[in-house]
Every structure is written in C-alpha cells, then in structure tokens.
C-alpha cells in the first residue's frame, strides 16, 4: 500500500519546522503532526478526520490557525490606510465600516491572485487608520515583501508575530464562547471586536472558513493557550486538525490558496465576483484592473465550478474533466470526500460553455470516466449568523 499524496516526512536539509504557541498542547492531545507551510501542525487528533468533521458541523470545533500571518496596516487615518491597501486588492475598504471585515485577494499586475486574505477595520475609534490583515501561512513572507515597498511613507506594515490565532466553528460556537465572553453572542457575521475572553484581552471576529457560524480569536501568543484550554473544558468543544479543516472548507465551496486559486487565476475566473464591490469594479485602481474589468464585461473563457461525482469515488486534485464525448475541458483543483454530504465533491475550472449547473461531465479517475454533474456551491448549506 502506498499513499499518492500527503507528504509526512520532513525533507533532510530543509529548515526545522516552526511551532505555533499551541504546539505542545497538540502533542499532549495525541495529534498526528505533519509539516504544513513550514510549521509542524496537527492534521488530526485521535478522534479522526471523519468524526472531527461531523463534530464541527454538529457541535463546535476548535482549530489552531496560529500559523497564518497576522499583521496590521497603520496609517494616520482610515482613508489613508484604506487607499494604500486598495492599491493592492480589489475590495472596497474605504467604505468598510468600523468593526467590519471583508474577504479579498492580493493581486499581481496581471490580475492573478498572489494570496487571499481577510481585512478588518478596527471597531475602536482610537485606532482609526488601523487595518488588521490575516493572510495564508505559506504566502505570508512573500505577501509582506510585496506589500511593504508598495505602501506610502505614512502607512506602515506591522507584523503581529507575537499573536496566536484560533478558530471556534460550528453551531455550538456561540454558546461556548459566550460562556467566557458574553459580548460574543451579540456579534453579527463578518464583524470584529476587542473583548476579554476568559479574562484575556483578545480580538474576536465572527468568521471562519468551515461554512459554519463561528469565531476567530486572536490574542497574545503567551496567552492564547489559556483561551484554548478554557474552551476545551466545554464538553461540546473538541480540537480539530487540518484534515477536517480541508473537508469542511471544500463542502463549503471555499477556495484553498495554491490549489483553487493562484497567480494564474483571476478573481473573476475563480467566481469570487462577490468579493469585488461595485465601486471598485467601476473605478478600477487595483493591480490587473484592466483585465478584471474586461472579464466582468465580457466573461472569462474558464470558470471555477462545483462538481458532484455520481458514484462514491472521490476525484482528487489534478483529475481531468471531460465532456461526455471525451473532450478535456478542465481540471479538478480540490476534491475529496464530503463527510456531511456523505459522498464525494470537488471543485475545478471548466470551459465556460460547460459551466452551467446540471451540466453532465466526466471526471477521469485512474483512466476511467466517472460521471459527474456541475453543482452549485456550497455543497452543504452554510450556517453563518447574518
């Protein structure tokens, strides 16, 4: 037996993997640790990926996402900082209200995606001019190297390397967090506040990447472990690894950077139009605007779609997508088994002519065509708190 994917051995000669502030806790909890984006991370705990996935959908899952990059953009006022960031991303940040959060993409000059990120405007009037960014672990050094030289002199990028980040996700997240941070219950989806969590000062946002209601909690690296431990005292909260994080976000139809989006894909091809607000579409003024505005007007030749195989066999990343007549018209970029769906699901890019929901296609798995249908995403209804 031999696994085709999943590197579990550490390259000799590569630098020693980094550890998050919660690393020792993962080991104590019995996690299987794997190298991921330069960090030694828990892929699963003894409960196993399937059970961890279902637990998150039914109760509340606790994730260590401290490997992700947290940073602040600090300028003299909101307008200055927002405009500095708008020169690099296509989202409307100028009109982002205090305490609100938006998903966006860092773009290159060709309109390709360098990384995807969350942007939050501080709710605190005393912090007017501060934006909080969360970027992908694997991209963070390149992102910072890209952002810093492109900022005006009065806007600074401050890396928040002294902070840890955890995500509490699932229908039980609100009750679990409200028990130790009552203000959390009042928060709306994609909003952020500073509050005490188990007595510790933390930035809490009502967001996540599982398709469930939930929160992300950022606190000092020296204190994040106390919040983690306190949340795990709740019988409804269990630690969840990267394996279930991946199956949860796949069912939710959310992109994984480096797989579903990268420098060769534009936000329009990636079906992320919703993340580019009207003012930016009209005014442009972001990298690759000419291409992206043209794509809004004329469409793209290929687009990211959901795919639902008809049988039980998962179609993994790299699987060719073909018409029933055998013409190859795309490639799967993420695919696997959806535990909540209780079946396989995938996403990938197909030629526009074959992208309508309900279109019959074949996925070429181990040389054999498996019937699949273009499906709307998310595959599993989301549970966001609107």
């Amino acid at each position, binding site marked *: *037996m031999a*696994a*085709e994917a999943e590197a579990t051995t550490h390259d000799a000669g590569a630098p020693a993997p980094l550890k998050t502030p919660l690393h020792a806790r993962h080991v104590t909890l019995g996690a299987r640790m794997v190298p991921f984006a330069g960090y030694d991370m828990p892929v699963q705990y003894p409960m196993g990926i399937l059970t961890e996935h279902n637990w998150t959908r039914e109760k509340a899952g606790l994730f260590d996402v401290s490997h992700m990059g947290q940073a602040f953009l600090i300028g003299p006022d909101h307008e200055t900082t927002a405009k500095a960031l708008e020169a690099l991303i296509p989202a409307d940040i100028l009109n982002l209200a205090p305490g609100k959060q938006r998903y966006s993409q860092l773009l290159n000059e060709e309109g390709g995606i360098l990384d995807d990120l969350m942007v939050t405007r501080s709710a605190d009037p005393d912090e007017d001019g501060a934006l909080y960014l969360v970027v992908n672990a694997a991209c963070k050094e390149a992102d910072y190297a890209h952002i810093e030289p492109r900022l005006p002199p009065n806007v600074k990028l401050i890396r928040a390397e002294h902070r840890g980040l955890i995500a509490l996700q699932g229908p039980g997240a609100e009750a679990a967090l409200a028990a130790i941070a009552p203000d959390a219950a009042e928060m709306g989806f994609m909003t952020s506040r500073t509050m005490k969590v188990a007595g510790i000062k933390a930035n809490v946002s009502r967001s996540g990447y599982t398709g469930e209601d939930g929160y992300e909690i950022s606190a000092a690296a020296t204190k994040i472990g106390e919040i983690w431990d306190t949340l795990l005292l709740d019988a409804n909260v269990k630690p969840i690894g990267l*394996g279930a994080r991946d199956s949860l976000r796949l069912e939710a139809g959310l992109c994984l950077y480096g797989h579903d989006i990268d420098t060769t894909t534009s936000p329009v091809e990636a079906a992320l139009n919703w993340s580019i607000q009207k003012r930016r579409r009209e005014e442009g003024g972001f990298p690759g605007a000419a291409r992206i505005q043209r794509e809004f007007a004329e469409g793209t030749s290929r687009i990211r779609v959901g795919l639902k195989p008809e049988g*039980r066999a998962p179609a993994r990343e790299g699987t060719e997508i073909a018409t029933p007549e055998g013409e190859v018209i795309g490639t799967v970029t993420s695919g*696997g088994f959806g535990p909540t769906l209780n079946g396989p699901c995938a996403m990938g890019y197909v030629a526009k002519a074959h992208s309508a929901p309900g279109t019959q296609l074949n996925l070429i798995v181990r040389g054999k065509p498996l019937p699949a249908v273009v499906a709307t995403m998310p595959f599993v209804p989301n549970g966001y708190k609107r």
Partner: protein
Amino acid sequence: MAETRYTKDHEYIRIEGDTGTVGISDYAQGQLGDVVFVELPAVGKALTKGGEAAVVESVKAASEVYAPISGEVVEVNGELEATPGTVNEDPAGKGWFLKIKIADAAELEGLMNEAEYQNYVKTL
C-alpha cells in the same frame, strides 16, 4: 490453521489451501484514517505480485493496494462498497478486499510472517 503473511507495504494475505484472502493490516488502516471508498478489481482479473490490486481512499488521500503475490482474483468483498469503514473496524476480518488463487506458492516465502511483521512495524 490459516497462516497470514505480510508485505512491507502492509498488505496481508491469509492462506487457506490454494486461495489467499488479501487486505490491509491494522497498522495500515490506522495510518490511513477513515476509509471512505474502496475500488476493487474485477473477478477473474490476473494480478501480478507487486502490481496494483485495489485502491483505498481516506478523507485525505488515495492509496494503492498491491498484490502480495501473483494470481487470479476469485472473489471480491462487495460489502465494502456500501460500508468502506469496515476496513477500519475489522481489517483482518470483515474488512478483507479480495481473494486470490495462489499461482505460485513459492512467492509466499518472501513475505513476512506475523512475528516478523509486528517487529517490522515497530521499526517504523
């Protein structure tokens, strides 16, 4: 008593007369995690020692299961289609993959016995 032999790739073959029942070891199922799909060969297919016999998929990844010896597939475990998790629950019993007609008994000699395999797993 039926004897079980193992490959370094964690397939087992339980020898019963001139047929062998093939599956994956308890160690292998633990490494894979939750099995969600098993692709089995057609009955009658001729397998070659070390060649692909089946595919087992966990939530995370697909893995090939290799034939421990050469021979023709005489039966497959169709139950795994509906309940692939049986591979995790009872790998040596109800979680078997296929039965093979032993073409050359000498090929079994190169495989590890129970004690040798358990020692091998301890070194991993």
